[in-house]
């Protein structure tokens, strides 16, 4: 059992290597965008993983508000942080793709605007958790924020089909050539594995912090602090 996590980490490193091989060597050049299209093999799966992190945070926050167990809050916190990392990947790589393809770094069209708003909500969640301290009030406030921010993912998802804009629609991946589609989905599952590992180590760190607080309280009761 002790070897499970190091083995999983090694497997994660292999997954990263395989994902790079697929994105850079296996898949041929795309016909309209050239080399810069290869950003999509990490950009699109990262967006899906941001949604996943947001939804996990939403579910765990709801759970925390119902049963007030600190473990739920720790899981929500870890999910938000891990999701935020993938959300940042999306907003960093998106403009780098857009500049040679659209000619601009950014466009305030529906998908990009809704994505930035939801990302800012989770950035606010992170700021509250990072600077608010460990108090119960802060945890409750953050949980309520996540409960509002989580379902907003729906608006990001449907933005292109509902309100138009220049962003490629959500179905682009499934409509693409087979090799592009297969590479995209394989990269998603490999990055999902990396997401799981990151979530696990972050959750463990928050659980350890909870244990530290519990031991501190016990010490305080015994007069050791």
């Amino acid at each position, binding site marked *: 059992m002790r070897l499970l996590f190091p083995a999983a980490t090694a497997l994660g490193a292999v997954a990263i290597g395989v994902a790079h091989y697929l994105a850079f060597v296996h898949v041929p050049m795309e016909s309209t965008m050239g080399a810069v299209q290869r950003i999509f093999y990490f950009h699109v799966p990262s967006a899906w993983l941001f949604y996943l992190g947001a939804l996990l945070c939403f579910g765990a926050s709801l759970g925390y508000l119902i049963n007030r167990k600190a473990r739920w809050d720790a899981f929500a916190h870890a999910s938000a942080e891990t999701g935020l990392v993938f959300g940042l990947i999306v907003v960093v790589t998106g403009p780098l793709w857009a500049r040679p393809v659209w000619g601009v770094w950014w466009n305030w069209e529906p998908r990009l605007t809704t994505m930035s708003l939801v990302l800012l909500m989770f950035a606010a969640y992170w700021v509250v958790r990072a600077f608010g301290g460990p108090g119960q009030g802060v945890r409750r406030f953050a949980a309520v924020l996540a409960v509002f921010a989580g379902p907003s993912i729906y608006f990001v998802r449907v933005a292109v089909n509902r309100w138009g804009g220049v962003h490629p629609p959500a179905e682009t991946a499934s409509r693409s050539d087979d090799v592009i589609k297969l590479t995209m989905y394989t990269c998603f599952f490999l990055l999902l594995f*990396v997401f799981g590992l990151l979530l696990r180590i972050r959750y463990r760190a928050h659980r350890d912090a909870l244990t530290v607080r519990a031991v501190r309280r016990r010490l305080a009761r015994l007069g050791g602090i």
Partner: protein
Amino acid sequence: MDRPLRTLRALAFAATLSAAGLALAQTPAADAPASAAGDEVPNAGEVVDTFETSPDLEPMRYRHLWIAYSAIWLLVFGFMFRTYKKSEATQAELELLKRRLADLEGKNGD
């Protein structure tokens, strides 16, 4: 929390806001391709054996690809490193507190 870390976070937040401001203020570049105007690209999502390169855009495409993947791994490894440091500090504190607790409980038991 460490003061330098707080400053770094505040700077990162300010940089994000500045980037958003710059994005809002920008106008389309002169070398913008047709798709910038929202035109449909007829064969997007298809793979080709030979790719017709655009001499103006080609270096930018490779440069941006390189920057994008560097940024991805900077973010992922930065997150992993931060988590590792946090875990290490928490584990060290936990060990110390447990030792202190064991000493105290031993004393109270005597």
